[in-house]
């Protein structure tokens, strides 16, 4: 008997992406550059986060035409972003047969209270998280992969580091609790008890966890891997830099050899300018993308 859309095949694709770089692309040419550089997948979207931040306005799912062009151009998995809570954008993306849907805070949320019921889909979802509670709420809703949010479109890795350290620290904290303390922990984390218990017993998230939001250099990517990420998303960091192809290749090598400083030194050489970064403190809390998601 053949079963599609099972949790195993949803989480299994994320397992296959581990140790890889997923790159934001806005058109078929960029997708080709990403594939040639060794990306494990591309994320199709209308504008990279740096432009969304600069242009303002409502950011929505990409035009299906663009997504189909990208699908026809590359053989690696094609992911695409839907707005938080916008289950019809997700239905459209499933109908297009994208390989993963990112219910993403980078787009303007469509629902300020509810996320998409991801169990209702056969295509897997990845969602952002700032902390363990948010990660487990998303898994409870059916997410098959998590990425720490960071602060997209800034080229500043500080938030990505904060979120990864927070999640890894909370996982370690759960591991040290007694069984009778897990109920209160679930209440504090605002997360489903069964998932809290699973994390406490297994010492890791129940799904693959990537890092995202502000990674701009090979060293940033390796930093996130050493902090416990299982792979990375790079948004504006590649196509807002001076030499996208060279930088993309270097990020791919850096994620494979994240514990080898000599190789990191070699691949970091002569990459031309990285994207211009933003100081998080100057943005103001109301302009932080990471606070979207409930």
């Amino acid at each position: 008997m053949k079963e599609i859309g099972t949790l195993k095949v949803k989480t299994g694709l994320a397992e296959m992406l581990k140790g890889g770089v997923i790159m934001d692309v806005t058109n078929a040419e960029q997708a080709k550059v990403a594939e040639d550089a060794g990306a494990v997948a591309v994320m199709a979207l209308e504008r990279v986060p740096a432009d969304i931040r600069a242009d303002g306005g409502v950011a929505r799912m990409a035009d299906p035409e663009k997504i189909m062009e990208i699908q026809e151009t590359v053989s690696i998995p094609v992911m695409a972003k839907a707005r938080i809570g916008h289950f019809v954008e997700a239905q459209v993306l499933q109908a297009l047969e994208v390989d993963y849907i990112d219910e993403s805070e980078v787009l303007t949320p469509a629902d300020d209270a509810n996320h998409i019921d991801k169990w209702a889909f056969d295509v897997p979802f990845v969602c952002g998280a700032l902390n363990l509670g948010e990660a487990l709420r998303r898994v409870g809703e059916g997410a098959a992969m998590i990425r720490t949010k960071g602060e997209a479109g800034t080229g500043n890795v500080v938030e990505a580091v904060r979120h990864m350290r927070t999640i890894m620290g909370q996982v370690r904290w759960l591991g040290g609790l007694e069984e009778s303390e897990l109920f209160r922990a679930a209440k504090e984390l605002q997360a489903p008890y069964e998932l809290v218990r699973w994390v406490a017993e297994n010492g890791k998230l129940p799904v693959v966890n990537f890092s995202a939001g502000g990674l701009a250099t090979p060293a940033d990517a390796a930093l996130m891997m050493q902090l416990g990420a299982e792979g990375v998303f790079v948004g504006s960091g590649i196509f807002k830099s001076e030499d996208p192809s060279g930088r993309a290749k270097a990020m791919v090598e850096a994620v494979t050899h994240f514990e080898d400083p000599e190789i990191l030194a070699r691949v970091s050489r002569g990459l031309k300018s990285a994207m211009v970064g933003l100081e998080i403190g100057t943005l103001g809390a109301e302009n932080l993308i990471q606070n979207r998601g409930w």
Partner: protein
Amino acid sequence: MVVTSPTVGVLALQGAFREHGRMLSGLGAEVREVRLAAQLQGLDALVIPGGESTTMGKLMKSNGLTEPLRRFAVDHPVLGSCAGLIMLSRRTAEGSQPLLGAMDITVRRNAFGRQLHSFEGPVQLRLPGRPAVTFPGVFIRSPWVEQTGPGVETIATYEDRIVGVRQGNLMGVAFHPELTDDNRIHRYFLELVAEAPRSNTVETEVA
């Protein structure tokens, strides 16, 4: 005869290498991650995991691993799953991408379709010298084997498709036994490793 545990490398450029490692160490093998050619020294066998075959191929090339891996596969057992099967193949139906070309097979990438068509289903497993059994197949954007050359045995099928092959000490499956709790394929591979002559190209253990 003293039974020593074999040292099995898992190619760790990208993909689900840890899952293979866990399964192999559970069966008593010594497991080492391989990212550089020098790390092939001293290995009795190698596993090429699932992942993205285009990414893996590029990383093999940029890290100078393609030729060393080809030479390794000539006289050592190698098991590939999914992308690993693609890497072992001589050609893909869609044309050019870097491959090791160790097995005389043609594979079709993403043969069952995109992720929406990824599935779990029963594989008919016919390991040489054993009765046919059913194995839990986890197929994720999986390839299938379209053509096999002489000397290649079919060891697994799903419906009428070839999803597992063996050629001498080389084995490839299109699905993901490492994502299940079923270690029969890894166990069989370690038996191949135990029976294979220890290669004299491996010099690191010579005092």
